[in-house]
């Protein structure tokens, strides 16, 4: 993390978050501060509350306790945050471009401007030529790319990604991970990336927030936040990579 980033205004601030279902608290005492372009991965075993945390950070669900602040969005027809879901969840009744335009609707853009703004991220994920296609004619990987384009189109300050590659085959997953490394260089957004794949987390993120420690009647919390500190290019081949992955694995085990 560069000093410059840490000094910039945070795009997300979460304090003492506790969350769960009904009266049951599953996750407690989560603090998170994000600056522009920071990439935070959240890992933990199934059911630890990773996806719930993501939804609480966005405000899609209310936390039991604590508060989340995402400063008001900038003026240039953008949204404070957007999200890439585990299943792409494209609207099958909209063509690819119209799906990407979803978040741009209601921002006061003209139809032509919306169209232009939708084509930019589609080009970024290499699917410009598919703009006029129906989602069902796309492969799973292509649909998830459209899901990413849809999220980037609104130029979010925070991009939430909820296990976005977990439903894909191994080859497509690896390809999209590489694409994400490229994409994050071109976006201002801070990224929160939920995954159960520790290698994926360490290979993509600046820091990895490890959730766990739950016991009968005791909710999970943040075990540790690991700063990755390895260069993005060729990170998987870096001598320290495996040791880091192992360290995180041991925390969860």
């Amino acid at each position: 993390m560069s000093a410059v980033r840490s000094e910039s205004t945070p795009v997300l601030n979460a304090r003492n978050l506790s969350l769960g279902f009904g009266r049951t608290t599953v996750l407690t005492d989560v603090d998170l501060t994000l600056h522009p372009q920071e990439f935070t991965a959240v890992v933990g075993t199934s059911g630890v509350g990773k996806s719930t945390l993501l939804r609480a950070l966005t405000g899609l669900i209310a936390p039991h306790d604590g508060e989340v602040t995402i400063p008001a969005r900038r003026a240039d027809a953008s949204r404070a945050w957007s999200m890439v879901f585990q299943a792409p969840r494209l609207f099958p009744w909209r063509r690819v471009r119209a799906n990407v335009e979803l978040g741009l609707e209601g921002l006061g853009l003209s139809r032509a401007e919306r169209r232009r703004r939708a084509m930019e991220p589609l080009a970024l994920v290499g699917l410009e030529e598919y703009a006029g296609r129906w989602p069902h004619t796309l492969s799973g990987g292509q649909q998830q790319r459209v899901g990413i384009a849809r999220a980037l189109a609104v130029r979010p300050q925070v991009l939430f990604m909820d296990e976005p590659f977990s439903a894909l085959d191994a080859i497509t997953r690896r390809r999209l991970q590489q694409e994400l490394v490229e994409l994050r260089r071109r976006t201002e957004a801070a990224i929160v990336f939920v995954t159960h794949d520790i290698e994926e987390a360490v290979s993509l993120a600046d820091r990895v927030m490890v959730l766990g420690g739950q016991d009968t009647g005791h909710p999970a919390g943040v075990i540790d936040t690991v700063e990755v500190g390895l260069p993005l290019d060729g990170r998987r081949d870096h001598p320290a990579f495996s040791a880091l992955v192992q360290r995180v694995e041991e925390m969860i085990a």
Partner: protein
Amino acid sequence: MTTLSRPRRVLYSALGVGVFLVLWELTLRSGLLPGTLVPLPSAIPGVLWLELSDGIWFEVVGSSLAHYSVGLLVGSVLGILVGVSAALLPRFDAAHAWLARLLRPIPPLAWIPFAIIWFGVTPTAAAFIISIGVFWINYFASYSAVRSVDPGYDEVARAFGQHGFLPRLAKVNLPAASPGILGGLRAGLGQGWMTVVAAELFGIPGIGQRMMEASSLLATDIVVVYMLTIAALYALLDFVFMLFQRRMLRWQP
């Protein structure tokens, strides 16, 4: 079971109709059945021509289509409106649930006495009766279609800033439920048409009334002409609607 090629299927289907007509004709000509009970099939084209050249056919079919269209329009619009509202507004749903359960089993024709009291023996009365059957079909079809919309789409809409009731209705609920709603419309098209003749039997001008007139004069050939007219018009309407439905749902795999 072996399947037939398409041309063979058509051939056998035509053969079936041909054999049926020949048997019908022979039964009457041989005197097995008296000619007063059923007309000769070979006499039908001539009678149809007479009805057409006198202009009677156009007159009765025109007036039937007129109350059919009014009944269909009113029943479909109200059915979809109430059905969609009930599916989306829990208070409204609960408030009218028992009423709907009470009124639903009453067949459209049971409303004939009230139709006459309220509207007299007029085309409006026929349109009213037709609209009742159409209403319930559309009501239930759109209610269950909207209820079964994947809530995941709603989450996507909210994640991309589409918060209001109306934007989500237009962008998620209606398009996602459109296969079910269109299915209801198509079923209503048939149900309404079946009710037309019955609604006219008590003297409202149209196909039904013409058939009653003819039967009182034992002109069974005229009755058959209009039975065939009913079948042919329904086939045409259903075909045209199917094309529309297919176009509207071209996003489906």
